[in-house]
């Protein structure tokens, strides 16, 4: 970006900030000034897109959210804003020859990422497919419920956000409430999303989920270690999705998402695509890999493979 353009951007932002602040001050004066709760309501109403917040504004927002969540759930909740790690691009491998369809990943994900328990929101959906038909989504079954898995004649294919390089969902968002971060994770600003659900129509993997109702998250189930763009408790009326457990994986290189840790058969692999020594690179270079709906050119960073 040329200097002139940067400067023009800054000027534009400054005026907008002023305009918003003026508006906020004006409306704030209408609300009862001494009432903290109503002040927080106005602050959250006038909050800007996360990517446009200055450092000090981010601190204000985080403090406000932490206070709000801590009061609501009766325990301290941390909201982090850790940015992408340098030189990291996350990739995910899923071993179809190992997966047994136990859905431990589904529920491991739910408890790590503070999804609504009532109604239930699952970021991972496990499809049961027949070995005869192969990967034939039209005959996939999501609601299989046998006494024991795996079942004879079937294999299982968990599907979650593919963190596409050429993501159809971010392109269609009318307000840029969702975008791809530098480490490849596609995130949603839950305070900016207007809930139009265009991204859900655009996603070929059914990876985006909507809060049709105020999320039912019992205080006892809250995971207090959260990220602003990730697993913090969500409001009603916005879209959410898998974020590769950024509250864990961004803290330190080598940390795994919850689904990778919980998988009892080691079917899930995770790592840095830019690191030639990583496990995920080994998988891509040495195993039979396939991309779901490759013809759509979404360029996922989620690779299915067969280890045997």
């Amino acid at each position: 970006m040329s200097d002139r353009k940067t400067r023009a951007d800054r000027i534009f932002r400054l005026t907008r900030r002023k305009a918003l602040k003026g508006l906020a001050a004006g409306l704030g004066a209408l609300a009862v000034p001494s009432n903290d709760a109503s002040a927080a309501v106005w602050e959250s109403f006038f909050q800007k897109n996360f990517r446009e917040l200055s450092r000090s504004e981010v601190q204000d927002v985080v403090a406000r959210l932490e206070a709000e969540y801590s009061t609501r759930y009766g325990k301290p909740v941390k909201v982090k804003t850790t940015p992408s790690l340098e030189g990291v691009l996350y990739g995910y491998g899923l071993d179809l020859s190992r997966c047994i369809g136990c859905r431990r990943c589904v529920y491991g994900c739910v408890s790590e990422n503070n999804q609504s328990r009532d109604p239930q929101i699952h970021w991972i959906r496990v499809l049961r497919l027949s070995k005869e038909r192969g990967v034939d989504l039209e005959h996939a079954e999501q609601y299989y419920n046998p006494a024991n898995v795996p079942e004879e004649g079937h294999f299982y294919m968990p599907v979650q956000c593919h963190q596409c390089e050429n993501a159809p969902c971010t392109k269609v968002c009318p307000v840029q409430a969702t975008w791809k971060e530098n480490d490849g994770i596609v995130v949603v600003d839950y305070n900016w999303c207007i809930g139009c659900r265009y991204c859900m129509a655009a996603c070929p993997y059914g990876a985006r989920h909507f809060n049709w109702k105020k999320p039912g998250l019992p205080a006892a189930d809250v995971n207090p270690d959260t990220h602003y763009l990730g697993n913090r408790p969500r409001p009603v009326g916005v879209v959410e999705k898998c974020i590769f457990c950024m509250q864990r994986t961004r803290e330190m290189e080598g940390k795994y998402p919850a689904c990778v840790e919980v998988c009892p058969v080691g079917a899930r692999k995770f790592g840095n695509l830019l690191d030639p020594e990583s496990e995920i690179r080994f998988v891509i270079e040495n195993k039979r890999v396939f991309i779901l709906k490759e013809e759509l050119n979404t360029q996922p960073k989620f690779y299915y493979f067969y280890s045997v």
Partner: protein
Amino acid sequence: MKKVWAFVKGCFILLRQGSKLYYTWVYVLLAFVGIGVAAYVNQLYNGLIVTAMRDQVSWGFYISNFTFMVGVAAAAVLLVIPAYVYQWKPIKEIAILGELVAVSAMVMCLLFVTVDLGRPERFWHLIPKIGILNFPQSLLAWDVVVLNMYLVLNFSIAGYMLYSYYYKRQPNMKYVTPLLLFSIPAAVSIHTVTAFLYNGLAARPFWNASILAPRFLASAFCSGPAGMILMFQVIRKWTKFKITDQAIFKIAELIAYAMFLNLFLLGAEVFKEYYSDTAHLAPMKYLYQGLEGHSDLVSYIWTATLFNITAFFLFLIPQTRENQVTLNIGCILIFVGVYIEKGMGLVIPGFVPDVLGDFYEYSPTGTEILVTMGIWAAGLLVYTMLLRIAIPIMNGDFHVGEDGIHPHIGDELFLVRRVAEDVGEEGDLLTQ
């Protein structure tokens, strides 16, 4: 500026005057709007869970109605073209009514989109500079731009012309003609952009067909004019406004051509999907035949198809096109037929089966139906108000008084059944 204010004030005085029938009609509409608002408040309070939409079918009745209404609005050009490009007098007299239809339909479209939002209070995020409008990346951003532009355009054209007539002046065509000509591509654009909104999603093969935008336009040029013909019949029967049979028959003829195109394009799509018989056939099969025991839409779509084909023949044959009974039947068939085809018949199969092969059969809940009825009532209310002002102005019953300040109101009743003329009109129709 003072004159504008006097005009607006005069309009409000006029809106309060009317026959018992006018008042009844307005109160009935207001009652429906009230019910819709109550249902919407309930939806706001509980979240969109009170609708039947879920993750698999994430758009439903609201967006279906939105899509249909965009078509109705776009159809105003079918009056503008003969009126102002070909200077055909019978339609020129009524072109303004078409523009007012466009205004009302746009208001409905914006309401339908708003009630579908999960966080309507964040609408300001869409306003450029204050929020972030993702233009030109997102087709929804395009839609926001063109829909609002079309609304403002039609409102200004009709408003300026009526304002001029009110002050007994001829509108300055140097301003109006370019705007009118611009409204033609603008009408095409609102429907094209709305089609592209679906069309651009590779994840949904049912929508991802290049024939979608042409089909949208063809069906819009059927449903909008059909609705307008019905409306015109009501207007000429219940108000003092005259609309010639000639104008109505010409519109009916245009509908016949548009319906031919619509059916042809539909046939082209059905052929391609069925003959190539790929995995992409599933949504169409679900719509027309039912798939794996899921067949909620089948009876609807066949009703729509039957209605459209019947109406096509009714409008193709001059004898039935120019007979008031068959003409009205044809209009109703088309309006309903396209409402099903371009509404639920277009939106729902895009989601069934969903991208992972899951079947969720959607049918709207009570809340969705009540809110939708409320928005339809609001649209009709807006149209009634606009007509209440436009019709007396065009009849010369509402203009500035001798003193140049106060309005002169010559039509205090507005809605009255015209018994004597009614017979005369029927006679007209029969002799034609």
